[in-house]
């Protein structure tokens, strides 16, 4: 069943069309790869769906509800969470508190209950030293903390925007595999933006390809990667 759907989603920045007429859907429990060359509009697309940016035109529905112009905090409360390509730690909060924010404000949990669920999520991601300041964390730990915070929102749809940029592909795979396992348990849909094709091939069931803001191909990675348009636009350019 389709959880999240966009129709003709478009965003232009004073002339530059970053996302152009994108219609897509995400189903319950699926792991979707979102790929495309640099500047293709992947991050902008996630900003639109999560409410960080408002679209120029088009519509977004979540579980049948029109959320095209809903504010970001409302979307996170109803079940759409995300991480950022550039890290966004809350540096005056401890690691555990960073993670608790998601549970307290999206799920209206008490501080005590939020702490408990935050601890459980961090344990699954193998993140410890939860009473540290965020300035003491390695880049891998910050990324894990931000994934944990997104998971603490208990979303039904989660977007990971190049969570692992700057890490090696083993670390990347390990972290995304953990998220995938959690996703299965919770029947959560996950959209993964990633430049490392090995990760996309191994972990995703379906892929959409963006190029210059347009959705140019869709399907299992094996099929999409042979699509001539994709080869030309993306793989061709990279090779």
């Amino acid at each position, binding site marked *: 069943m389709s959880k999240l759907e966009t129709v003709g989603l478009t965003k232009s920045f004073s002339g530059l069309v970053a996302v152009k007429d994108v219609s897509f859907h995400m189903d319950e429990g699926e792991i979707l790869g979102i790929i495309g060359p640099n500047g293709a509009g992947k991050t902008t697309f996630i900003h639109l769906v999560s409410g960080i940016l408002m679209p120029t035109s088009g519509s977004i529905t979540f579980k049948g509800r029109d959320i095209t112009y809903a*504010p*970001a905090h409302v*979307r996170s409360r109803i079940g759409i969470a995300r991480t950022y390509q550039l890290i966004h730690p809350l540096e*005056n909060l401890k690691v555990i508190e960073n993670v608790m*924010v998601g549970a*307290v404000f999206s799920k209206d949990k008490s501080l005590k209950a939020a702490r408990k669920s935050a601890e459980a999520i961090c344990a699954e991601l193998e993140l410890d030293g939860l009473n540290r300041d965020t300035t003491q964390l390695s880049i891998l730990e910050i990324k894990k903390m931000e994934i944990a915070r997104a998971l603490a929102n208990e979303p039904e749809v989660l977007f990971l925007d190049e969570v692992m940029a700057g890490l090696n592909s083993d670390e990347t795979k390990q972290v995304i595999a953990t998220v995938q396992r959690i996703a299965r348990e919770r029947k959560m849909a996950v959209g993964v933006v990633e430049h490392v094709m090995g990760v996309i091939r191994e972990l995703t069931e379906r892929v959409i390809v963006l190029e210059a803001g347009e959705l140019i191909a869709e399907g299992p990675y094996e099929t999409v990667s042979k699509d001539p348009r994709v080869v030309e636009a993306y793989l061709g350019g990279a090779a």
Partner: protein
Amino acid sequence: MKLKGSYIAVVAAAAIVIAFPAFLGAYPLNVARSVMTYMALAISWDMLLRSGQISFGIAGLFGLGSYASALAVLRGGMNPFASVLFAAAFAALVAFALGFAILRLRAMYFSITTLALMEIFRIVMQNLHDFSGGPEGVVLPKIIFDGYSPALYWLCLGGLFLTIGVSWYFEKSKMHLALTAIRNDETSARSNGVNIFKYLLIAFVATSALQGMMGAIQVQSYGFTTPDTAFDANFLMLPMAMALLGGIHSTIGPMAGAVLLGIASEWLKLKIPYGHLVVYGVIIILVILFMPQGLFGLARKAMRNRRKAGANNE
């Protein structure tokens, strides 16, 4: 164990300050009231600052509370105690209405707007001759408690305790997470469910109510006010300097800063009656430049270093 220790310390400290009138005469009690008023303002300024919003409007809400209370008694025949609550509610209501407009602003735009509002309140009071008494201000028929100084002291202490209590609640509840998240990274806060406007509005309304309440207590204790006294820049500069000196983003920092600077300011007022504001300005600048974490920040850092050194020696 540790929690119990600090609990006992807090109760003991509260008992001592409650008992002050047993040892102190009218003059020191007066000084204490002034320090407590500034302390409450410093704490309330800091409470909003925890969200990253720097208000220059505290003297405005303090003055507004003073006038609301004085005029409620004078023109409305309200009981003086009730007028203190009325002033707090009035300041809260004004903050609530203004909040919808100004809490969309950030950084310097918010600060300057709050400063302008304070000036507007003052000018309005100065020009509503028939209602507010104009530049000459208002004189109340009598001072609350007939000016009995221990009672005035306890009233002011009550206002301070309430302020500390609300600030403590801000530190220990989810307000702490909300305000800190907003201060650190609004994008991150929003995408984790924080309704930024709601929490800014709560903080702005709550702190404005406290500031209005302290203004009301002040006017009822002195029995008169004028636009220049009620909206005195002292009520802005001194609390800011206190919070910065002691250490911002906490309850204890502004309290420590208020004790230090509050006592120093009584002395400064006598020594340089017209220049003491300059001294607070200089303190604000020096602290921001060289000690942005304040005295408590320094102490915390020193303690952490000591602990680290200890751990390395093991």
